[in-house]
């Protein structure tokens, strides 16, 4: 049975965590993720979740505790943003290399320097190569749904998963979220029964592998990431049966017959839907591709969805000196379609409907070249 409750994106993440009821949750505050941990701590204090909440002394220790707990056979979840994520980043490939199904909510925030607590995607994009499954969420509902999906997927794929949402825009704004029953979620995620655990098996985790073995272990990880693509769809369809919603690698919004497409992740996709609507009213065949699964990246499927269109990719992060990350993946999915790269919204700079419409205008006028353009920047 589903219930509709008004809540913020952070609360949606915390609610999903509460229903999953992990064994261990290491917690360290950082804006704008803090409300997730505060809400969850409230749950624990009022016996609405019986997780061990480990209030660590840094994000690095948060992920280290997560690795220790997960290797010991516990279900582990945590959350962070920006500098915290980068501080943890030493341990991210360790979590993935040890094939631990840790689930982490990332509330996207810009990276220092300069210090900025507002939204952009530079934090999670910087971690795309650490072999964590990456799922982006447009709104509070998706944060909730994706967190549940992530938990089951992590344990199936034996890979850690991060679920993103926009800092402040999604995390601090109230929307209606349809949540499942506690029992439904408990049944969906099931019991966690790892193949190995420090508390049950006499086993060594984290050995040194010299050049004669390291390559093979990494190949296993690459294989697991590949398989995760299919497993994502399997888990998504199981979740579908409970929520009645469709899930996929991406959402195609008025894309099928579109001549001009915008590609985006997270909340800007919502803004883009408005722009698509207004372009359509003017008789223009505009559409949106909203990427949900970023790692592993669904190149073939994206290529099919964007075939024959003129494309504007909106990146909320730079890859300084190179093509921005989302645009790079989109370009790699295509065979000859023209792509204009845009960077927008760094450090929480707002993205307006008009700015997205101007991107559509560029596409329609054929103003497409290899240089990254900027939306909302004072040139």
């Amino acid at each position, binding site marked *: 049975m589903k219930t509709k409750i008004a809540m913020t994106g952070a609360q949606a993440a915390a609610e999903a965590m509460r229903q999953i009821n992990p*064994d261990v949750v290491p917690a360290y505050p950082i804006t704008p993720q803090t409300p997730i941990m505060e809400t969850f701590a409230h749950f624990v204090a009022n016996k609405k979740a019986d997780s061990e909440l480990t209030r660590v*002394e840094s994000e*690095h*220790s948060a992920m280290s*505790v997560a690795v220790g707990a997960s*290797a*010991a056979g516990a279900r582990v979840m945590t959350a962070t943003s920006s500098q915290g994520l980068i501080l943890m980043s030493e341990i991210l490939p360790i979590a993935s290399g040890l094939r631990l199904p840790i689930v982490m909510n990332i509330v996207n925030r810009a990276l220092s320097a300069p210090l900025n607590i507002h939204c952009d995607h530079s934090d999670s994009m910087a971690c795309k190569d650490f072999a964590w499954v990456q799922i982006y969420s447009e709104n509070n509902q998706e944060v909730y749904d994706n967190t549940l999906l992530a938990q089951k997927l992590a344990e199936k794929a034996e890979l850690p998963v991060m679920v993103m949402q926009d800092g402040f825009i999604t995390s601090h704004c109230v929307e209606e979220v349809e949540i499942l029953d506690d029992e439904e979620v408990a049944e969906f995620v099931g019991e966690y029964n790892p193949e190995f655990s*420090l508390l*049950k098996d006499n086993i060594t985790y984290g050995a040194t592998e010299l050049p004669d073995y390291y390559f093979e272990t990494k190949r296993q990880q690459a294989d697991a990431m590949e398989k995760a693509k299919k497993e994502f769809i399997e888990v998504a369809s199981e979740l579908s049966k409970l929520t009645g919603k469709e899930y996929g690698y991406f959402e195609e919004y008025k894309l099928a017959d579109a001549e001009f497409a915008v590609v985006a992740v997270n909340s800007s996709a919502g803004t883009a839907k408005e722009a698509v609507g207004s372009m359509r009213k003017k008789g223009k065949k505009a559409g949106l591709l909203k990427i949900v699964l970023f790692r592993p990246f669904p190149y073939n499927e994206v290529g099919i969805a964007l075939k024959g269109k003129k494309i504007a990719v909106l990146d909320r992060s730079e890859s300084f000196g190179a093509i921005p990350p989302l645009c790079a993946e989109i370009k790699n999915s295509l065979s000859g379609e023209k792509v204009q790269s845009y960077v927008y919204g760094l450090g929480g700079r707002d993205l307006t409907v008009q700015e997205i419409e101007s991107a559509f205008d560029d596409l329609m006028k054929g103003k497409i070249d290899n240089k990254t353009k900027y939306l909302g920047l004072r040139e």
Partner: protein
Amino acid sequence: MTTFKEIALKEKRIVSGHTMCPGCIVPPIVRIILAATDKEVVAACATGCLEVATTIYPRSSWNIPFIHNAFENAAATISGVEEAYTALRKKGKIKKEIKFIAFGGDGGSYDIGLQSLSGAAERGHDFVYVCYDNEGYMNTGNQRSSATPYGASTTTSPVGSARKGKQNFRKDLTEIMVAHGIPYVAQASPSHPFDLFMKAKKAFEAKGPAFINVLAPCAQWGIKQDEAVEIADKAVKSCFWPLYEVENGKYKINLKPEKKISVGEFAETQSRFKHLIHDNEMLEKIQKNIDEKWNHLINLEMEK
């Protein structure tokens, strides 16, 4: 009290086939400590000599569940294992009693690992932390750490015309851990194995965090491969490395040397100190520092 035979008859929790240096005293230290409890033990270990030499794929010298995570987070990692144990025990998924131990070298405990050790101690997890202090980053070839003694020559504090070895006195991690107010803190040496065993036993039995700092003389100090134990003994007898415990804030010195030897007698056994032999000024500075610290310890023991 125990005997060597009793320890020897226990099932080995660390086994042969590791690639520690010939004469390295760390494996015997680990063997003695792990023999001090009959309960099951799970170990975490920081990157360093002990970890690398005992776990080169596909071989592990550990006969107990073992996890290596990274360099600075042995304490955080074992905190996670212990939290999982608490959680799963509450849910009835684990019934047996398990003890938790983390090993770290001085690098992974005094320096890069200090934060996570402090955090784990403050949170009060029930675990034992053992620092095997070989006074330098030995796995990477003897670079100075904050545990390296004043005047010692290392590759990053070498003896040259402008500088003679490390310019600062070493950090006192044992006292830092006492300041955390944890139930049990101790300093031990492989030269006094039954004292070490007793301390390990108390550490495992303590309810909450326990910390033992064990001196581990290393080949890279410039000693012969069979000298580790006798040099550790000189460290104790010169009061360079006092054997003491702090149980719930109460100090107890386990050995007051009858005939205290000079720090020169300790230093002359190691080529990392050979430039000090004729440097009376530096030797005096070191002796003064050791005497002050020893007197301070005596006063702490006398306090109620």
